């Protein structure tokens, strides 16, 4: 197992390195930020001068070597669009991103899990069908649409919640719902099939025969055994959330990493984009590694490949 972990860990690091290299070069395929930093009246000479000041006129491989050197020293670089250190910029957004991810996961789990259990326990009845329909309906509208509808209804017409921005718990509610709705359906479905599987197992029948009530059975036995697929899905859902957050953050003016990524790409702020991708790559790749390990624990038919 240890050998497996070390090898996969090493491969994960190589994969992260690969992502960042790929992103480094493909970004520069699309030009650079000088045109956006300068006024329209800038002449070609002005543009070249700015490029030289920013160090963007050096050959790409030279810039790449510098970049690698910086990473090795844990220096994420400096954004010339925002005139601040990249670490500062990202660090200021991480709390918001974590809040939003936590909020969305909370919505997805707190509503999705019970609904999934409900659907499993009432599998033959129409309740199950209608619940599934409702759950799938949550996944059937684009987030930018459901976002603005919520803002209008709860922010403008009813004035129950703040219409945009961040700061209090109330600000977190609507963005979390908008983002969590997508994952909700996934969790509900996974929970339902996991619980349905468990329901068919022998220990359930023997527990029922012993007179264990539904409630105790769900909490004590079923959930614990159903937890494994739910956990492995969470690893994938987290990276999904980071991607889906882009639109939610734009609509709700939620200053997280998603919005930062979009704005930095639009401004060709390479340094920030690279840093965000590096961070995201770490999270995704190591989360997938964790999911793979869990998967192999769950299904002993899968022999871990070690090379």
């Amino acid at each position: 197992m240890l050998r497996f972990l070390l090898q996969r860990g090493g491969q994960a690091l190589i994969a992260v390195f690969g992502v960042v290299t790929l992103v480094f070069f493909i970004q520069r395929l699309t030009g650079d930020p000088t045109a956006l930093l300068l006024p329209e009246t800038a002449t070609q000479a002005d543009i070249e001068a700015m490029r030289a000041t920013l160090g963007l006129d050096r050959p790409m491989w030279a810039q790449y070597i510098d970049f690698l050197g910086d990473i090795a020293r844990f220096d994420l670089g400096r954004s010339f669009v925002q005139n601040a250190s990249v670490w500062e910029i990202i660090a200021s957004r991480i709390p918001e991103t974590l809040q939003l991810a936590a909020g969305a996961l909370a919505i997805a789990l707190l509503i999705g899990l019970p609904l999934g259990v409900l659907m499993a326990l009432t599998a033959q009845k129409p309740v199950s069908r209608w619940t599934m329909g409702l759950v799938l309906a949550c996944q059937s509208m684009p987030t930018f649409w459901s976002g603005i509808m919520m803002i209008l209804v709860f922010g403008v017409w009813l004035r129950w919640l703040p219409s945009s921005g961040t700061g209090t718990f109330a600000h977190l509610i609507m963005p979390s719902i908008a983002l969590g709705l997508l994952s909700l359906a996934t969790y509900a479905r996974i929970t339902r099939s996991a619980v349905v599987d468990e329901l068919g197992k022998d220990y359930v029948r023997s527990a029922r025969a012993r007179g264990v009530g539904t409630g105790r059975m769900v909490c004590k036995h079923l959930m614990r055994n159903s937890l494994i697929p739910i956990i492995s899905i969470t690893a994938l859902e987290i990276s999904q959330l980071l991607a889906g957050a882009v639109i939610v953050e734009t609509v709700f003016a939620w200053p997280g990493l998603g919005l930062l990524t979009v704005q930095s790409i639009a401004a060709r702020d390479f340094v920030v984009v690279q840093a965000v991708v590096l961070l995201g790559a770490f999270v995704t790749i190591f989360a997938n590694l964790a999911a793979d390990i869990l998967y192999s624990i769950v299904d002993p038919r899968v022999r871990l490949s070690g090379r």
Partner: protein
Amino acid sequence: MKHCLQSMVTAAALAVPLFTTSAMAQDITIDLAGEPATMDPHKQWNPTSYYVYRNIFDNVLTRDNDGTIVGQIATSWNQTTNNTLELTIREGVTFHDGEALEPSDVVYSVKRITNKDFGSPQLGQFNKIVDASAAGNVVTLTTDGPYPALMAQLVKLSIVPEHVVEAVGDDEFNAAPIGSGAYAFSDWDRGVSVTLTRNDSYWGDKGPFETAIFRAVPDAATRVADLQAGTADLVVSIDSDAAAQLASSTEVKVLSAPTERVAYMGLNLDKPPFNDPKMRRAASLAIDRLGITEGLLQAGEIPMAQMASPAHFGYNPDVAAFEYDLDAAKAITGANPDLAATPATLATAPVFDQRIVQALQQMLNDAGFNISISMSDMPTYLGIVRSDPSENSELSFGRWSCACQDADGIAYPVLHSDSNWSRVNVPELDALLETARASLDAAVRQEAYNNVHQMVRDNYYTLPLYQAAVLYGAKSNLNFVPTANESMFLNRMSMPN
């Protein structure tokens, strides 16, 4: 979390004035379309940053609400020779840290922004200033040859305190700027908002608001919702249809003003079909400018027939408006249908009003052209329109702004063959533009620009469309006069209850 605590403290601090009897303590919340890139006035070229830092720093000169240049840090000025300008510096101005603003600070600011190593994006607008010196309370600026746009450019030059910048360095200064303006920097919650507090020892008109919060709200629909919900008192960058929705409410109102942005359709004169002057004329005849400004935009836009507007020096009121005659357009394209049907792309970016782009495409296609829209993000769009004419798209739609209100800033880059924006290469035009750029005599300049505009009109070198108007959404009781250069001075606003 930190923000919860911060906002609770801010809320408590903001709430305190509500419970006092003072009617003066008031705050304003403004929704911007993004967050400021920097607070250092010399380090960027970005309207969002400008909205905020313009209240923290004073500039050498400024424009009043009618657009006339008036003094701010400079009280009077004198053009002593073709190459030198003398500015008398105001006395009694202090920075937010209590130190006095000296003429040496003005010299320092000029030298900082013209220093190549500093890398200011605005260098191109000030690099004709080769020297600055102070003697007593007079600062003398020396330019490399006559520079008629100098006054207009000085409207944008902010004065930074030498002693602070030298002591803390550029990065620290950006994080905690100190100026001499009506509002002092208080807090910058990156990505979220910037907070300013009133400078009670300001030399000029003090602001009416105790605190001003500038929030970053990227989505236009959300900004409108914020205004309707009462979360914001003033929102920027909304379009006329959004404004129409606000018109029916009594709590909010729409403010508009014509700006110095001119919307135009650039034509590639090197590629078919627009290398043929008749086709260019047909394109112009096919566009219903009034239909666009009054049927679609409805915010006070005015059709233009020149690369200038009434807000610019160098505007020629005698240039005839472009005609709209669809039948005449069709007659021209009908005479040469193959050339007219050459596939042409209209390059644009999401930041421009897409209704206009689509309307233009429809109008041109109705006249027999074959135009398809190619929308890409801003940097890609800039790359396309600034490339060689052979790689450039046949058409582009954009809005030009130089923030200088001088025809030199708009006609020269769009029409002079040296400019990488220009797809025009006409020696007479180049000569006229250079004359206007190098003369300090207003009459000579106006004459040259009159000829430029008439040539463009006669030959359809490019197709100006309209003078853009800017729309703001505001609370009904907010007094704010929008200006042509889209300034947002907090101390010129008021919000009586």
